[in-house]
């Protein structure tokens, strides 16, 4: 078997070789080419890519349209900052606490949401996120109200100081890579298939013996945990968190990233996060009406490629192959 036939026979192997060759360049080139602001932007994109990937698990694979995913992102961020600063412990413990808090919250909130489908799920997830948002604004002694809380100093990792933008960038890249590898494993697992089954037909899943609510709740909790991780890394990145992290706007942004990039594909949300934040960063230096531009892109996207940019690209390449 020649190399060429090997790769046509095993498209997965082709993909793997592609990634193995390109990945070091992709990860290292921003370090070489960018500094300061540019690197910070990419780091932020990767942080939001993680939370978009987490939403994609329940939205793209589980068919649950959550309009409150900022709840878990924000809780992860708040818990990381508060645990690290109030109890004077290592921020790593704070990060672990952030993930744990988001996971527990996802189990509790999920228990209410997964009973409902469609619009009910959407509204319930939004309601919980708004509740947490108001809580963060009103509970001043704990959260600092609308001013937020800060004072988190980035810790060391194996002797490397995360306060260095290069180190922070590499740490975030590792978190994103970890989240993607984990997601890839889950999607190809029996559980991943069961989750897709609940998206396609709950009625049928129950009739063949699956307890669909439990399955949806497990996916929701997993998604909340990863969103919490993203929030914790965001707290490291900013050193500060405000009720904005729990807001309606943040939830909408995460949702847009997933839909723009392509729900139900592994890398779609990463692409969506990159596109959204690039447009935001570039356009907002010229006009404060940057959301207008994002809105236009979104409308165009929904009309031209409802499966998202990655879905559209896949469709193009498939029709290309057929010719």
């Amino acid at each position, binding site marked *: 078997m020649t190399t060429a036939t090997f790769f046509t026979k095993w498209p997965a192997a082709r993909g793997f070789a592609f990634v193995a060759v390109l990945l070091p360049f992709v990860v290292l080139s921003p370090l070489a080419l960018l500094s300061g602001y540019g690197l910070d932007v990419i780091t932020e994109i990767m942080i939001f890519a993680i939370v978009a990937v987490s939403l994609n698990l329940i939205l793209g694979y589980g068919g649950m349209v959550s309009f409150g995913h900022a709840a878990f992102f924000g809780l992860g961020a708040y818990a990381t900052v508060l645990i690290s600063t109030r109890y004077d412990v290592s921020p790593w413990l704070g990060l672990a606490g952030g993930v744990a808090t988001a996971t527990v919250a996802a189990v509790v909130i999920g228990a209410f949401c997964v009973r409902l489908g469609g619009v009910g799920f959407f509204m319930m997830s939004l309601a919980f996120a708004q509740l947490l948002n108001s809580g963060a604004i009103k509970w001043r002694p704990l959260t600092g109200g609308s001013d937020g809380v800060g004072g988190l100093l980035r810790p060391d990792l194996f002797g490397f100081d995360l306060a260095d933008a290069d180190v922070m960038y590499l740490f975030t890249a590792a978190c994103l890579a970890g989240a993607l590898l984990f997601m890839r494993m889950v999607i190809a*697992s029996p559980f991943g*298939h069961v989750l*897709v089954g609940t998206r*396609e037909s709950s*009625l*049928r899943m129950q*009739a063949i*013996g699956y307890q*669909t609510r439990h399955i949806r709740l497990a996916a929701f909790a997993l998604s909340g945990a990863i969103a919490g991780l993203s929030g914790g890394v965001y707290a490291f990145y900013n050193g500060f968190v405000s009720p904005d992290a729990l807001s309606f706007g943040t939830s909408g942004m995460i949702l847009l990233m997933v839909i723009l990039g392509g729900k139900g594909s592994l890398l779609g949300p990463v692409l969506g996060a990159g596109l959204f934040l690039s447009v935001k960063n570039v356009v907002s230096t010229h006009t404060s009406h940057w959301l207008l531009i994002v809105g236009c892109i979104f409308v165009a996207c929904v009309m031209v490629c409802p499966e998202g940019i990655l879905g559209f690209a896949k469709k193009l390449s498939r029709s290309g192959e057929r010719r």
Partner: protein
Amino acid sequence: MLRLENVSKAFGSLVVSNAVTLDVTPGQRHTIIGPNGAGKTTLINQIGGQLSPDRGKIFLHGREITRLSAPLRAQAGLARTFQKNTLFQALSVFENVRLGAQAAHGRTYDMFRSWRNDTRVLGLAEQAIEQMNLGRIAAQPVGKLSYGDLRQVEVAVALATSPTVLLLDEPTSGLSPSETARMIDVLHALPREISILMIEHDMEVVFSIADHITVLYYGEVIASGAPRAVADDPRVQEVYLGAPQ
């Protein structure tokens, strides 16, 4: 195997099941017939757990399942097909059937291994595909299948769960004569370890498969017994052919 005792259900003032009592014995091919609106599908929904009866009791293997949820009934060995298409549209025939096998024999919450590693589940899925002669379309997405093929996939998904009692809701409705003949062959070939309770309109199918017939009329059992006896029952003839002049 499966027993219904005085199962009753009403939607408002419309009585859809009126004190239905029936018994499916081991290995039986039990067919429910009745004119449109007799409450056949509603009855199957109550047995499957998609609806719950207002009164009466349902037993599976001697255990009462009246208040059990649909998934728990399925885990207890009850499988069903649907008349309307509720299959997993975006998934292939094989994946549909595999999810059925995994429900009964797989690890639902395993996130750490590929589904390809579960050879037992794969084997059971392949077996169900073979039983239904679906090998030629196994890789096709269900959303693109013809209606006739969908009816076969329905049965394959149910079989993959290794049921002891199989509920079939009009397995041949909408099939061409040749497809119907194929379905009859397939149902004949099923092992007797599986008891079948089936709703059917096509009398040719009924008489070629059933060894017991129950006639439902406005939610009520008006006759039940061996096919010949039921066919000769004056009440049944009246319902089907109109009152003798």
